[in-house]
């Protein structure tokens, strides 16, 4: 039995301790906003916050998460109105949208640690987030806009 806090709620999971958090979220907790894209930490689509920092849910073993605080896209803001989410709407960032939960979680973690990031800091923090639709220019603009707002 593994106890952890997901989006502010205490959860007890009787699951394989080797199971990556990604599948516990998607298949057992119904939190499908966190996406499966590669399974090997190459695409960033499964990014969540682990105790406030960005982490790839496909690489987090449930057995290592006892007592940890996990935030997913569904828990980033109670009304989906986090400044990063607002900036994403204002800049019309998403195309297919599949990578955007991960992009937003990555950007929110970046801004929490670095409130006014430079382009180079954005590149460094977001390099692990692949977008096949090519929304990078708008991701960058939205991060700058959220930093201003």
């Amino acid at each position: 039995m593994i106890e952890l806090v997901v989006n502010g709620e205490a959860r007890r999971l009787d699951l394989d301790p080797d199971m990556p958090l990604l599948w516990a979220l998607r298949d057992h907790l119904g939190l499908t906003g966190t996406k499966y894209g590669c399974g090997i930490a190459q695409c960033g689509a499964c990014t969540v916050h682990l105790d406030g920092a960005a982490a790839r849910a496909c690489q987090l073993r449930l057995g290592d998460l006892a007592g940890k605080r996990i935030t997913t896209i569904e828990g980033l803001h109670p009304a989906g109105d986090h400044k990063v989410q607002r900036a994403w709407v204002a800049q019309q960032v998403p195309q297919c949208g599949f990578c955007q939960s991960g992009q937003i979680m990555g950007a929110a973690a970046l801004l929490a640690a670095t409130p006014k990031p430079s382009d180079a800091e954005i590149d460094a923090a977001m390099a692990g987030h692949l977008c096949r639709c090519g929304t990078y220019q708008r991701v960058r603009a939205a991060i700058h806009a959220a930093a201003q707002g």
Partner: protein
Amino acid sequence: MDRRHLLKAAGAALLVPVLAEAQQAPPGSPPGPPPTAIPPGESPNAGPGRVTAFLRIGADGRVTVLTPILEMGQGTHTAHAQIVADELGVPLSAVTVEVAQPEGPFRYTPVNEQYAGASWGVRLIQPRLRRAAAQARAVLVEAAAQRLGVPAGSLTLAEGRITHAASGRSLAVGEVAEAAAALPLPEQPRLQPAAERRLVGQPVPRLDVPAKTRGAAVFGQDVRLPGMLQAVAKLSPAHGAAMAGFDAAPARAVRGVVDVVPLGTRGVAVVATDTWAALKGAEAVVIRVEAALRAAARVVDATYEVPALAHAPLETDNCTVRIQGDAAEAWAPTQHQDWVRAAVAKGAGVAPEKVRVHTTFAGGAFGRRLMVEVAEQAAMVARAVGRPVKLTWPREEEFAQGYYRPAHACRLRAALDAQGKLTGLWFRSAGQSVMGDYRPGFMARGPAILDPFALQAVTDTPYRFGAFRSEWVRTEGPAKSWLWRSVGGSQNAFFLECFLDEVAAATGQDPYALRRALLAHDPRRLRVLQTAAETSGWGTPAPAGRHRGIAFCEIYDSPVAQVAEVSVERGTLRVHRVTVAIDCGEVVNPGQVTAQMEGSVAWGLSAALHEAVTLREGRTEQRNFDAYPILRMEEAPVVETHILTTPGVPVGGVGEPGVPPVAPAVANAIFAATGKRLRSLPLLQHDLRA
């Protein structure tokens, strides 16, 4: 077919470009006003207030647009909503867009099937939606006139209300929708003049964006049904090799694994209570393969080369199927509803009419989601285990089993007169066919058999070369080939546009001036080229260390020119900026045209710099993004888009035409920077140090 094509066809050896035209105006669709009436009999899209085949209007005034086109990221549904809201006279907020169940009015494609492709999500649906909305407007007004006892001509419909100005009385459209649905549709409804449009032509924010920023949009991968099991595919690892047998015991030993279901000779699906257990089980299954593999094609004596490419949408292929009695339901992020229906019917052992297809958001499509093998497999598994099943292809299978843009080689020769003027061009490419295996009926049969996409953007180029001969040689290979965003344009623009740069360099001409001369007869295309050149500063000094390259291409009725600005420092390439000019005819949503140009540049640049699928012993060597890198944020250039319109030119394609010019514009800029002429992709395989 116009005269230009005929003349070119007459001069070509292997060339009968009849079906290239199919992408522009599908043969088989009626020349006059398209059908919008509800077909007789039981309809899978039936519902209250269905005024025309394309529109349902609820008593609450909600307007549901039924469309054949999925939302795969291009804002297509928002464009549909804009068109209908304007033409009908309702607020945009009242409109919802839903992908229709496969049915006659939505099968307006060349082969009477319901699918999305060839950048036609707006351009082919727009006249039908406009007509349907105008008809709906007419019958709503007529129903209101009957209710109020006044002449229809005395009523106006705006903002969802039908008003009798003389008496001040009004009705909401929802109040008369059911009565309107019983009225006959006018054959020639009044279409709204351009001056009255409030939404079409405006950069309206996308309807799906808020949900996509909250993790709330449901992709195929996110479908959940009561009692559903998770399955993942483990397929024969070699292209063209059938599974000879498998050992399921190690998979069955994994906690959570429920079953291992064979998928014919393609492989197996491991079914489990969750995806993690299914993935572990799939890893444990041993698949035995027949030894005989077909040999890969070998092409020699080529001037230019491009590799095979994978679509690699970020959402891997998947389908969820529920079978109940003699009926089945499928949830799929698909571009092709009719093929999913047929595939599920086959896999589930039910009649096609008994299959409902629910089209979800797609996490990228790019042509990949016209392929529906996963749907048949999901149905086979659901049938075998007697429970609803979602079958997911893991990323490794998505790469290994891909339907690739085929590798091509191309030789070009140019004839020049004494003054260096181009007097003739010979283009000869070789590669696998994209249509030959899955759409043999699309192959054009003339003096020889031609894949209509093989010479896309070549036979139909607006350039005038003088004498012009284009040929294509079909090769065979073990891997599957299929449509990849911008299809033949993806390789042919690289071949032709880099080669034109070579001609310019060999004759001491400016690459832009050379292209101007080739388009001098065509003001619309010339303006596109000129806009890209002038807005990028062509002919003026570039910022220090930067160099420019230019390219032009036209597919799906939208000419696009691009100028890439690059630097190469100590062998390191950086693409700083790409200036794009497009004339896509009438514009429904300029915001989305701009977004598609940005995305197309990223897509084209990703392939140009990085991407290649290679085979070894019949198997794909790249199994995940570590071995198949795609463009990353730090490599993304600034994209500046200029949208042109030409009065009287209808809506052109937008999703694909921005892709082909990227690779040649960048390669030509590299030549300007280094003097190195790179004749093969991906570009980063070449050593750029001086």
